[in-house]
Structure formats: structure tokens, C-alpha cells
């Protein structure tokens, strides 16, 4: 089966390219890009419409398949929150052709068998690529290193104790050194657990008014600073997950200037919402790191604009009602993201903060490069992972129509402009909205 994507504006930051051009896909790979491929093919008699499926994509934007490098698919262990199947359905519906999933499952993904089982389940689902992130420490307890080589062999693409940050700096140093020798990235969830202990939201005026225990921005920043120092001292690389504070943006910016190998991601909620969203004790706005202040949101947006923050990743964290429908202090941290990420991120383009090229770089090309995985490009020969965006589509977020099992979003009812209408994974259409 051959697929011709015709008439769309193609934006590929890896080449870079931004023009109206056709794309031909064959055997799951991109064969060529060019003007009027269709006309040429049919005129030469090479091609009959019966063997070539042509998609008329005029008015649409074709980009390299989006990659969310920070998701929680909850399987194994928490299938009542999400499964690999529902998570992948949500990913495909949200325009993602690949996701990396964090190891805080049950059991924790700290050994080959868990990694392999995730990959096997994802293959069975056959909706999008799933790249497991393995734990840094056994059971993510922060004491002893997991078997990095074995995990890499099994298919893990990075190491992280996401959600259970490595408090021991010596262990973090060893993890970064060992991973570097394997050419594997380490992803750091920066949170000093002593500083954040008991916290339920950002420490600021809102937490003062609500009488909720606050998580100071410094709880993130001291750990970001620590990991940057380790990277500098050892010459290894670090990827800072879900940057939420102005201080972290500044630390990363300065580190990059000094040539330290640091990359960073943020999530749409950190450049969209402030801690005011928690005002009415809305548990759907309870995330970790917490939604921050106005200055932090401005700094994160500036960090995205000036390139300090390389990646937008959703930190998709589905929960069941039972995890959320409780007192604010007791409610689980996290919100779903896969089906709202692109809509919220496109707002950065209409706000003039990013060009479309820069946005796609952060949602596809950069995560592919950081995780050393295929994708992030539409170059000939590349795997045919493609997302088609309708920039004019106006829609309203309806959590009851999510493919994800999670309904925990503060964006329910929000109006969005622009959405993914087709997701092509390995040349196969995995999601299509008429």
C-alpha cells in the first residue's frame, strides 16, 4: 500500500522545510517529497489510482509525527487508571506517533522483564510507538542502581526515577556516569523531598490564602542546580523534566551558555495555568511540580521562546475518579495531557511565542534526538510517522470523550483552535477524524 499526502503545507524542522509539497509513503517509509508527485506519477503511467491511496490535505499542515517523551501509561499495575491500549489510543487521537512512558508502574520498570512486557503490549496494541523509560534505582527507592545495560538491551530508551526523585546526589552522579557510557539519557524529576514534604500546591499567595501546605519553587531549583553541577563535573548529560519555575529556566539557560550538556522539557499546563487554577480547591489542577505563579509562567514561555527549553512533553498522568474525588490534600497529583497537549501548544504559535517550525521541533524533532529514537523527521528514508494538523479546526475540550481513561483535566470546556486530524504511524493511518 502506498500513500500520497497531497496539497498540505509541510513543516519539518529537521530539514528544515516549510512549503506546500507532496509526500509519498511506501512500505512504512517516506519515499520522497516533492511538488506534484501525483501528477508526475499518473502521467508517466507508473501509477494507477487503485494502488495509490491519495489523501487530499489542502488546508492542512503535515508535520513529523509528534513525540511525547513524558507519559504515564500506568500498565502494569494501575490498569484502572490507564492501560497501554487506552493510553496509545489517547496518544494517536492527540496526534502523537510515539510516547515514552515513565517507570512508576507496579512493579516498577526496573528490570528487563517489565520493559519487555511493556514493549510487547504496545506491539499488540499497534497504535503508536511506545518507548519505555526505565528506573534509575531498583524499585525507584533511590538506593541501588538498576541494571542499565540489560534495560537498554531490552528496549528502554532513558532512565528516570520520575515521581520518586533521587535524593542521594552520589547515586545520581553514578547513574549519570554509567548512563553516559551507554549513550543513554537520564531524565531528572527535580524535587527536593524535604523541601516539598507535605505540600499540595505551589507555595505562594494562593497557598497562603487557602491554608494549603506549599511546595516552594526552590524545591525544584536546588535539585536542578545539583543535577547541572553533576553534569558539569562529570561531563555527562542530563535532561530536566517538567520545568515549572523561573529559577529552573534561569539555571538551565546559564548552564547551556557554559556548555553543560543539559536539555529540558516543560508541559503545556506550566505555560498555560498559574496556581490561581487551584483557587476553588480544583483537584484537577493538582500536579507535581505544582502550577506556579505568573512570573514562572512568563519565564517558562520565555524559556521556550529562546530555546532554553528544548521540548514540550505532556506529563500525561491519568487517574481514576477515586484518586481525585477526595480532599485536596489526599488527591493524587497529575493531569491527563495527550489529548489536549497539541491544542494548548498551538496557542504558543498564535500568541507569537513560537513559530510553527519551533513548536514542531519541540514536540517531535528534539525529543527524538534526546531519546535517540527514530522519528522527528520527514526526510526520505525515515519511518513514516506523520501528524496532520488542521490549523483552522475550532473545538471544545470534552473530557467525557477522551480515549484516555483519565478524566482529570482542568481544561474541560476550554475552546481550542487547531487540532490533529490524522495520525500516521509507520505508514498506517492510526487515527483519522473526518
Amino acid at each position, binding site marked *: 500500500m502506498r500513500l500520497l499526502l497531497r496539497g498540505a503545507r509541510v513543516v519539518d524542522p529537521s530539514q528544515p522545510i516549510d512549503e506546500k509539497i507532496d509526500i509519498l509513503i511506501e512500505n512504512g517509509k517516506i519515499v520522497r517529497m516533492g511538488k506534484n508527485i501525483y501528477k508526475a506519477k499518473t502521467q508517466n503511467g507508473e501509477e494507477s489510482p487503485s494502488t495509490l491511496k491519495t489523501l487530499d490535505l489542502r488546508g492542512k499542515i503535515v508535520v513529523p509525527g509528534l513525540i511525547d517523551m513524558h507519559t504515564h501509561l500506568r500498565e502494569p499495575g494501575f490498569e484502572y487508571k490507564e492501560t497501554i491500549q487506552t493510553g496509545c489510543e489517547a496518544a494517536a487521537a492527540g496526534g502523537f506517533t510515539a510516547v515514552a512512558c515513565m517507570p512508576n508502574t507496579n512493579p516498577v520498570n526496573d528490570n528487563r522483564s517489565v520493559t519487555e512486557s511493556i514493549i510487547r503490549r504496545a506491539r499488540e496494541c499497534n497504535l503508536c510507538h511506545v518507548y519505555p523509560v526505565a528506573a534509575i534505582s531498583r524499585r525507584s527507592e533511590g538506593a541501588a542502581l538498576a541494571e542499565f545495560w540489560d534495560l537498554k538491551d531490552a528496549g528502554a530508551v532513558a532512565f528516570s526515577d520520575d515521581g520518586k526523585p533521587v535524593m542521594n546526589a552520589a547515586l545520581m552522579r553514578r547513574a549519570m556516569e554509567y548512563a553516559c557510557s551507554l549513550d543513554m539519557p537520564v531524565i531528572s524529576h527535580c524535587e527536593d523531598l524535604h523541601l516539598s514534604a507535605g505540600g499540595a500546591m505551589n507555595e505562594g499567595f494562593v*497557598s*497562603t490564602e487557602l491554608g494549603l501546605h506549599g511546595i516552594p519553587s526552590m524545591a525544584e531549583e536546588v535539585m536542578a542546580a545539583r543535577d547541572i553541577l553533576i553534569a558539569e563535573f562529570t561531563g555527562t548529560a542530563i535532561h530536566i523534566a517538567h520545568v515549572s519555575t523561573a529559577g529552573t529556566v534561569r539555571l538551565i539557560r546559564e548552564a547551556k551558555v557554559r556548555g553543560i550538556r543539559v536539555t529540558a522539557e516543560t508541559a503545556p499546563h506550566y505555560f498555560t495555568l498559574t496556581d490561581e487554577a487551584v483557587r476553588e*480547591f480544583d483537584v484537577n489542577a493538582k500536579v507535581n511540580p505544582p502550577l506556579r505563579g505568573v512570573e514562572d509562567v512568563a519565564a517558562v514561555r520565555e524559556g521556550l521562546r529562546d530555546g532554553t527549553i528544548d521540548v514540550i512533553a505532556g506529563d500525561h498522568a491519568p487517574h481514576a475518579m477515586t484518586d481525585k*474525588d*477526595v480532599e485536596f490534600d489526599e488527591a493524587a497529583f497529575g493531569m491527563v495531557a495527550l489529548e489536549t497537549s497539541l491544542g494548548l501548544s498551538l496557542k504558543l504559535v498564535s500568541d507569537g511565542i513560537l513559530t510553527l517550525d519551533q513548536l514542531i521541533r519541540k514536540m517531535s524533532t528534539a525529543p527524538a534526538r534526546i531519546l535517540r529514537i527514530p522519528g522527528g523527521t520527514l526526510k526520505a528514508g525515515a519511518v513514516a510517522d506523520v501528524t496532520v494538523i488542521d490549523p483552522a479546526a475550532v473545538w471544545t475540550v470534552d473530557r467525557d470523550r477522551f480515549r484516555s481513561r483519565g478524566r482529570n483535566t482542568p481544561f474541560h470546556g476550554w475552546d481550542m483552535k487547531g487540532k490533529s486530524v490524522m495520525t500516521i504511524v509507520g505508514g498506517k493511518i492510526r487515527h483519522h477524524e473526518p
Partner: protein
Amino acid sequence: MRLTKKDLLGMKDLSIDEINLILDTAESFIEVSTREIKKVPTLRGKMIINLFMEPSTRTRTSFEIAGKRLSADTINISASTSSAVKGETLIDMARNLEAMNPDVIVIRHGASGAPHLLAKRIRQSVINAGDGAHEHPTQALLDMMTIKAKKGRIAGLKAAIVGDIAHSRVARSNIYGLTRMGAQVAVAGPATMLPRFIEQMGVTVHHRIEDAIRGADIIMMLRIQMEREHQNIFPSLREYAKYFGLNRKNIRLAKDDVLVMHPGPINRGIEIAPDIADGPASVILEQVTNGVAVRMALLYLLSGGKA
């Protein structure tokens, strides 16, 4: 003027008119409590559930007496553990209570926002009897009633609130109420007890008790929670009592006719010296009396025919 709210969740939501209505109504109820038959038939046949998810004697008893003086049936439900630990969620518990058709649910809960969660889910009126470190509106109202009775007004007075502001719902509710009614509020405590950006609530911030109580018409001393010593909020009770306690010496900085208040229960000799707690400036027992009247007023104003 009437109270159109379904619930009383916090002082932050109350307008000046609403506060005055509650205080005026409460004043009328003071008389009922002085009668030989301290009971009126007003809420006969109404059911009030006191849901106390955190230990409390004073507030629970006060609500219970208030309900009984209005002839309502009051039922006390106490749970020492949080709902999540018990396995039943607050929502489930609320739905069960709702099915028993009470008219008002009074809730005390260790988690900020728990009454708000309840109020959103059930038809009945919810009164916040203290949630986490968030609000304790009936305490603020009884404090304001006491101040008004003694001083004749609230506007223009200088009030000092001293102690662990960060963990105090009493402080927050009083800050909202007193500032709205036109009083000047100063807070004092070691920096570890003063939450960030507290000044944005319209108060002045001090790190010495002397600076806060100088020229004050009202001094509110907050109860020090002993267990905070272990969280390094303060080094020792001895040091706290010495540098932040109200005593015969530092009280002289306040106005001669200063009122000394305390939400209770008192740690004698720690936040307040015994001779001050029992002295002429102390209105701590009037606060308790007024507490019943304020709660009667709220039960009266909130419980009623279905809309």
C-alpha cells in the same frame, strides 16, 4: 437584608452587610441564652449533623448547644482518622449523610477545602467549623461579636494576631473579617510561622510581638501546637514563651483598655501568661458565650425552607 448563601464556608466570601446581619442576629440570641428556659422552638424538627473529622470539644459543643437551644436535633459524628485512611471517602460519607435528610451539616476537617468539597456535592447547607489551616469562620464571627460588644465598633481598631499564622485557620478568618470591617491588623511571629505573601492579605508583618501589640486595641494570641516543635517551626517551647508569649510586661505596650483574646484551648504559660489569661483585659470566656450565639444565628439564618 438576608443571607442568601446555601453554605458558610469562609469569611472571605462574606460581605460587610452579611457580617453585620450575622452579628446583629447573634446579639438577639444572647438574650435567649440568659433565659431560664434557654430554648426556643425555631428549628423544631430540623436535623443538624456535626461531622467532626478532627478532635474538638469546644467548637463541637458550642454547635451542639446552639442547635439544641433552637430545638433542632443535633447528631454528632466524630471520626478521628481521615476518611481516606478509613477507606470511606468523604464524598461517600456525605452521600450517606445526605440520604438521612439533615438540614445542616457542620463540618470540621483537617484538610483545607474539605467543606467546599462537601458543599459542592450535597443539597444541604454546610457550615465550616474549621478546615485545615484555611478558615474557621464561626470563630472569627464570635471574635468580632466580642469586639463589637466591648468596643462598640470594629472599624478603626488596631488588632494584633500573634503566633503560628501559617498553620492557623483562626488567623486567616479573622484577617478577612477584621480587615473587611475596617480594622487594622498586624501579625507577629517568628518567620517560620508567617506564610509567604501574608502581607498581600492586607496586614502588617512583624517578627517581634512588641512591634505588633504596640498601641493595639485587641490582641489575639494563637494556640501554639506543641507538635510543631518537631518540624523546626520553633526551637523550643521555652524560647517561644519567652520571646513570643504575652505577659504582664509586654502587654503594657498595648492600649490601656486592650482586649486579650484566645480561640482556646489555652496553653497557660506558653503563648499567654496565666495572670493575663485570667486578668481584666481577658475576654476569653465572653468569646465562648458569644460562640453559642453566633452559631445559633448561623443555624437560624441558613436552615430554612427549601428554595
